[in-house]
């Protein structure tokens, strides 16, 4: 599928770079931003592990 040239648009996860065929669920944000299920889980883990705003610190 991935190599199929007739597949018109490839949506890529903006965080890990995998395309929609390689991940379970891909959630689209505004513009050209997407996030896949795995990255969502990863982010949640990060938040749970050390709460607070990393960039604000």
């Amino acid at each position, binding site marked *: 599928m991935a190599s199929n040239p007739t597949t018109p648009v490839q949506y890529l996860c*903006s*965080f890990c770079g995998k395309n929609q065929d390689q991940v379970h*669920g891909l959630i689209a944000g*505004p513009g050209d931003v997407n996030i896949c299920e795995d990255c969502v889980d*990863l982010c*949640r883990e*990060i938040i749970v*592990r050390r709460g607070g705003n990393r*960039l604000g610190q």
Partner: protein
Amino acid sequence: MASNRTNRVQYHCSFCGKNQDQVRRLIAGPGAVYICDECVDLCREIIDEETGSATTAATAKGAAGVAKNVPAPKFIYEHLEEYVVGQDQAKKVLAVAVYNHYKRTGAAADGDIELEKSNILLVGPTGVGKTYLAKTLAKMLDVPFSIADATALTEAGYVGEDVENILLHLIQAADFDIQKAERGIIYIDEIDKISRKGDNPSITRDVSGEGVQQALLKIIEGCIANVPPQGGRKHPHQDFLQINTANILFICGGAFEGLENYIEKRLTRDHVRIGFQADRGFRGTKRKDELLTHVTHDDLLEFGLIPEFVGRLPMVVGLQSLDEGSLVRILTEPKNALIKQYQHYFAMDGVELVFTDDALKAVAEMAIKHKTGARGLRTVLEETLMEVMYEIPGRGDVKKCVVNAESVLNRTRPLLLTRGGQQVDVSGPGSTQELRGETA
């Protein structure tokens, strides 16, 4: 300070547009992509909802997916067959175990019956392919797989590796994806080295033997383990990765050198023999294999494993030591057979390497004498080819190297042939002097 604060770069969540002051936490992706904690929760909800609303569809799909993606035991067996010679029983057991492991981890989410794992213990002399089986399995599986070494482990608090570190290796193999790691397989090598060291009269604690077995108990059975993410020992000011080991399959392997004596003792206990050579019941090369097929948990207890530990490894498989036929097959048949490896080495120098059939047999024969299993083959081949590997690269005329039984058994130089099929007379240092002596 204040102006500094206002001039600070503003990061915005790429999904909802809020900046870092408006959200609790902002996670940066590669490039200028950010996501805030609220969006993460929202995304999680969307995913849950989607999978939840389509539960029936998802489970049907999941069940079909398991059936489709999971390699059948026969397929796993065939794959192992490509690399590992012999050991049919062990291959079958591993294939079934891995297949069941897939099924268990796939079905863990739903169903009333909770499936539990059956860990495996591989017992067999050195060099028969215990670790190699594990490595081959690791390559073909798409679950995280790690190979740990029991020799380095010590009880918590003592210098050496804590048992939790074997889980860390698995987590690393899963790219720190804990959920993925919880479906992984761990191979613990050299498990016999942590057996209790006899009934030691010393009063010191057996920190690398029995202590390790005790520490492994909970991990092998299934618990929530706290793993320090950087490895090393635990200390209070450190956050841990929590991992549930209930679904991690453990395969242990060990040589258990001397185990056959315990088995023999048990088997011959009932029928007492009297007279000269009374203890010659099981002798010869097959004796050890014959005995290892009778291995039971009792023998492992005698060997020095603690009952709690043995009980958690319900499957015990004895591996057979390799005979001449198997060794010859190991030399030639597997995908990365030794002969193929050496032919590749020689091909880099533009030389064709040929072994005659009796040479292969001779190599196997010599390797058996080394008593190191298949590892002995490499020793023998290195010794045999050492001279020509020294000689050939400097000479352009050699195109073919033929090894026969004589060169293996008597360490004579293998035949070197030129492109036309003429024999190359490479004189070693000894014969050169002889020649000089004649001319002088």
